[in-house]
């Protein structure tokens, strides 16, 4: 169940002396194995400033998820260049995705509080995301 991630970064004027062209391809695999990641979840929505004040959880970390090799794709679909989504790994501010920006990064969940949270600033930010991950054990009903 191979999922292939391909990234290209190009610019004709960022480096003064030569065009920039980077291409990278990766097959998404489970941690400590050569077995493909086989689960995925994705979604899209609108993140309002008020509703996300202080951050809302995009994906909770779990005990079963610790030290796994999930990959997270997140894109800010806003069009106003002053609107951004702030991304956190628990209390660590990873960075900001301004309108039209996206990110792709591994998420290994160092512990059960290593959740990913997002917060809109400036205005409502439509967004989409996908998380490629290992299987999860369902939590017992309470």
């Amino acid at each position: 169940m191979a999922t292939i991630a391909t990234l290209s970064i190009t610019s004709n004027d960022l480096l003064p002396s030569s065009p920039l062209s980077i291409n990278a391809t990766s097959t998404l695999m489970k941690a400590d194995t050569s077995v493909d990641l086989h689960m995925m979840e994705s979604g899209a929505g609108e993140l309002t400033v008020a509703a996300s004040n202080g951050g809302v959880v995009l994906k909770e970390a779990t005990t079963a998820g610790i030290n796994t090799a999930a990959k997270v794709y997140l894109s800010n679909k806003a069009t106003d260049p002053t609107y951004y989504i702030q991304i956190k790994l628990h209390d660590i501010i990873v960075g900001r995705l301004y309108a039209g920006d996206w990110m792709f990064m591994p998420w290994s969940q160092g512990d059960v509080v290593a959740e990913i949270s997002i917060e809109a600033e400036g205005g409502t930010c439509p967004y989409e995301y996908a998380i490629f991950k290992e299987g999860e054990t369902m939590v017992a009903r309470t």
Partner: protein
Amino acid sequence: MATTIAQLTLTSTDLLSDELALSTVASISAPHTSGLSRSAVTSTDIGTASGQVTVDTADDFASPNFIYVKNTADYHASNNVVYGYFSGDADGMVLQLHGGQFAYMPTSGDFTLKFYTSTSGTVIEHMVIGTNA
């Protein structure tokens, strides 16, 4: 102002019952870069500063800046794994990249991003794109 185009494509013919083909493009208007670098990481412990590779130094770039990092090693389950952390943040581990894997992500620029490795000599390629602070 320089323009950089970053495109990500995620494809799979068998992850879902239907084919997955996700593609996204972003145009970054930013004048500065650290330049594309290739560095060997030799430190094998987060507590051993010597041999760690600094990809982004705190406050060199204003927020947001984008970081590209690729682990150039061949994939191995447990060897040649690089770990990225925000220096100065006690709980700052953010990245774990096996051979052949990459990350493209924004950072605030407030912390220094450093890498150590499971296997001394692991080579990474890295770049920061943004605006000098």
